[in-house]
């Protein structure tokens, strides 16, 4: 097959269009990521605090937040006084974005 190495995605896209749900999922993730990161920029927060501030169900906040930690955008901070909920923050307090 005569397709330039490193550009095969483009070739495939021409043959198989991407499903609408896939693009919607991407949009949803990008939007949620931005909302969560903006909220954390204002200060460290727990999952219930983020849930309340953003009106996103707490289980969804946890899932997305843990994904952001895994992908290297956020990190775990201290635990609250009741030893119940952790605070989460921007990775390296946003200092090192490289």
């Amino acid at each position, binding site marked *: 097959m005569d397709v330039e190495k490193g550009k095969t995605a483009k070739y495939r896209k021409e043959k198989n269009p991407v499903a609408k749900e896939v693009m919607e999922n991407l949009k949803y993730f990008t939007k949620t990521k931005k909302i969560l990161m903006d909220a954390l920029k204002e200060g460290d927060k727990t999952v219930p605090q983020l849930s309340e501030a953003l009106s996103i169900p707490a289980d969804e906040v946890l899932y997305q937040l843990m994904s952001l930690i895994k992908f290297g955008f956020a990190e775990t901070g201290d635990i609250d006084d009741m*030893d119940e909920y952790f605070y989460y923050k921007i990775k390296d307090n946003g200092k090192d974005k490289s």
Partner: protein
Amino acid sequence: MSEKKILEYDVLVVGGGISGGEAALNLANLNYKVLVVEKDLSLGGKMIALSKVFPTLDCAACITTPKVSEISRHPNITIMFSAEAKKIDKLGDHNFEAHVHQKPRFVNIDDCTACQLCEQACPVSVIDEYQQGLVGRKAAFIPFSIASPRAAAIDIINCTLCGACERVCPTGCIDFTQTDKDYTVKAKAVVLATGFNLFDPVKIPRYGYGKYKNVITSMQMERQLAPTRPFNAILRPGDGKMPDNIAYVLCTGSRDKSVGNPICSQVCCMYSIKQGQLLMGSLPMADVTIYYLHIRAFGKGFNEFYEQARDMGVEFIKGKIGDIKEKENGNLILRYEDVEEGKVKEAEHDMVVLSVGVMSNSEISDSFQGESLRLDDYGFINQDDILASPAETNIDGVFVAGTATGPMDIPDSILSAGAASAETTSYLRRASL
């Protein structure tokens, strides 16, 4: 466009979990050429995803990873990932022909250095099935950190074809032109090591799995306890709280005719006791309660392991669970019959773990053409002469290993794989006489 290649081996092993891997290794060490057909992206089956094993509390990955790397490096073993044996035909003695279908990975494994740059660049996040849905993963991803091979794969269903992964890949090993492949495999014998399925607790709606976020499965807890865990600590998925009062419901989908599984799953009691002990280690202030009907601690060191959990403070209640309801704060109310007192009681926990049972994975039986593969009453592959030749199936030359025959723990799976490779060897020797 699919291409069809003819490949020849001594033995076709279906399944690259711990039993299939062990059987393949034994046969390869005797100089037989083995093809392992694995449906997943990595070797190691379910064992590689576990935290620790009972009753020794050895790290599961520490046992599995050297074994899988030996399998992958063995010169007599060829492995096909994302592949399934779609048709297996016995043409005569020592003469099997299988049709193997392989889905593309869109990454050339041999050139991938596992640098993860594609993962970082990929903008898509989807549910990570390797972390039991507790966290997300990218569409370009390495299945899990100790996967073998440790190489990326592209989840084409969720890929936006943006090309970001290809642009950053330093080795140029991503290839979206890959297509499905079909092979004709000729082999002298077949070993089936297709493993088991876990019971899906959605089938017991009164336990609330899928509806109440803090009701999880034992496999989800297993991931939370593993060093490569999805969260920073043990957290309840509903709101990220560190649980301090966890309940286990044993026999979820085992010994229960009403859900179609009347047999004992053999491992749920012990893995729950193991998790109880591990939880006491990770959350020293937490209460762990195990609701059981019978504790079946039948193996070597098992009863001592059970006693050890009691001594550590795990509470055992002989109780039959009626239902589980959720409170507004996410806590769960368990209604149960205290069997010893003969009373119906209620207890509040902030997290419930359903100790799900073992179900058969009988799909492979559909692949057999002509002579059909016999299953037992529970859908596991039938052992025709369980005492004299435990690995024999009803088809001469087709052997079975591990949990494909029925529920069993890891040491028994490895022993069973040993039996399967020994019986396969003796069958192959007959071919050369």
